């Protein structure tokens, strides 16, 4: 197990270097001149030239890359053109909001998706099964941004059941920032009103974000449960006199979860992608929205820093998923 982990970390490091190269390359390829954008359309050429020298854009590529790596090593991701603050600071500021939302979305996807898949398999071809399969298909095919708009239209504008886009009611004050995650901070501060309002604001975006994952998980749980339930060892469990619930959970599900775990990694990737779109729609002050705006305004430092962080997070999650898979599936002898 340890050797496996060690080997994966080495691979990860190489991948990270590659990530840095690519993100740098992306920034480099930008044909439009962001400096002209900062300086303003009326700025004379020499101002732009001075800015260029200041930011080091006049140096040859390898020098720029070298400086880039040097700064990275020192945790300096540059300054965001949008906000004027260091990118690292921006990222740390916005990340918890996304983490909160993504966690809730993942929880929804797992806690609803797995039982749905199990019930679908156990009661095969029942109305519940058909409903769940249709839901899965639709969930996987739906454009996230569209769903967000439609649900917002229905539940906020037309029905008024759920609050406006945003994290918190304008009238309420944020609790003192401890972790950056609204719910946790509210609990720490003992502020019940903020807590409940925060949850109400999270319902819609989390559902929208989580639906895709829910659909994917339900699908794979269903198919692997069907597979597992036809196996001989399930018969053995029944012969032992085990009640049906335990047969399903202790024996069947335990086996069916093995392929499901790999989907979790993919789901997480979907969450990262989805958050860019969802946060934009729901005006959620998180990393996704930050990134979307960075891309639009060509805020290079933010683009590079943000993309790299996303790739890093995704890689770590995939590593965790692979380890979890190896843990769950005893047949894997940790040689690839």
């Amino acid at each position: 197990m340890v050797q496996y982990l060690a080997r994966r970390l080495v691979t990860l490091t190489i991948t990270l270097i590659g990530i840095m190269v690519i993100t740098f390359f992306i920034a480099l390829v930008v044909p439009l001149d962001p400096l002209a954008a900062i300086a303003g359309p009326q700025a004379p050429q020499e101002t732009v030239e001075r800015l260029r020298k200041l930011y080091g854009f006049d140096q040859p590529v390898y020098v720029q890359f070298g400086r880039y790596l040097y700064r990275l090593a020192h945790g300096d991701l540059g300054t965001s053109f949008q906000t004027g603050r260091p990118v690292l600071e921006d990222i740390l500021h916005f990340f918890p909001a996304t983490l909160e939302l993504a966690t809730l979305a993942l929880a929804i996807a797992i806690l609803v998706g797995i039982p749905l898949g199990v019930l679908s398999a156990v009661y095969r071809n029942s109305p519940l099964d058909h409903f769940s399969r249709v839901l899965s298909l639709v969930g996987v095919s739906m454009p996230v941004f569209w769903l967000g708009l439609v649900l917002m239209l229905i539940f906020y504008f037309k029905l008024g059941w759920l609050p406006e886009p945003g994290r918190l009611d304008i009238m309420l004050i944020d609790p003192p920032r401890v972790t950056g995650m609204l719910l946790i901070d509210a609990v720490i501060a003992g502020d019940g009103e903020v807590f409940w309002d925060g949850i109400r604001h999270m319902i819609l975006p989390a559902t929208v974000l989580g639906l895709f994952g829910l659909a994917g998980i339900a699908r794979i749980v269903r198919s692997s449960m069907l597979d597992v339930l036809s196996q001989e060892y399930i018969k053995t469990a029944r012969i032992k006199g085990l009640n049906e619930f335990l047969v399903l959970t202790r024996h069947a599900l335990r086996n069916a979860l093995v392929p499901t775990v790999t989907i979790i990694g993919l789901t997480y990737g979907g969450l990262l992608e989805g958050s860019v779109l969802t946060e934009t729609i729901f005006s959620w002050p998180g990393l996704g929205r930050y990134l979307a705006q960075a891309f639009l305004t060509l805020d290079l430092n933010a683009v590079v820093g943000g993309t790299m962080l996303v790739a890093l997070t995704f890689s770590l999650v995939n590593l965790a998923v692979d380890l979890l898979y190896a843990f769950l599936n005893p047949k894997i002898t940790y040689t690839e």
Partner: protein
Amino acid sequence: MKMNQTASHTLDKSDVRHKRFEARVRYIKDSYVLWRRNHLMMIGTFIILFLIIVAILAPLLATHDPYDQILSDRLSPPSLAYYFGTDSLGRDLYSRIVYGARVTLTIAFLVAFISMPIGTVIGVTAGWFGGAIDEILMRLSDVFLAFPRLILAIAFAAALGPGVENAIIAIAVANWPSYARLARAETLSVKNNDYIQVIRMLGASNLRIMVGHITPMCMSSIIVRMSLDMGTIILTAAGLGFLGLGAQPPMPEWGLMVSDGRQFLVDQWWVSTLPGFAILIVVMGFNLLGDGIRDILDPHQRQS
């Protein structure tokens, strides 16, 4: 006399050709039967056929010019004059959605037909040659795979600049690694087939083996992956359009149209809702089709 006698169990050339033909016909017939039995897949196929027809016949089906702005009629609700209503610039939504089918199909197929060959070539090469080449190519694809696809596509689209062509390139760049992985896996599994060994011994060049033998063996998995992928490609393209990084106005791209209608969501819901619905239907169609193709090409299913 004895030399001219062919043993009774060998076939001569024309027999071989005939038997191969028969086998192919039977395969196609079986596939057709499986297709018909699978109702969901039929629905998917019809949706896609419908989409293709709409795209081809767009000029005939549309009621207005999709770029034509009739400002006095802006933001009007669905009616007999404008089936789906009009958008903020007075353009007929129905016609724009109809023409949007062309845009969507073009993007989807271009992305697929760019990323698939590139990915397949890289994958087969990596799998066949192994060693350092394999390592380098796989590390390269790992790096690309370390980014969630949409994010990578957005990054490249942002870097390359807005526009449909750049969006297509961006999505293709994000897409090829999964084909490479798949092709490599398939190559590895057939590399040691007796069949391949024989051809090597007969002196076939690497290129010939890779192109003529290995690649065809990978094709069924690749096709399955491609059909399942189409839906995701369309969603990614729509996402880019929505963010303003893909198709640019005034092009009738569905994602872009959803974004346009965002400000008018409350009172003029049709501007955003209907194009998004079109995306949903099309992606569902491709997903159903993809599932069906997978069921057909998967050898396990064929036994029944």
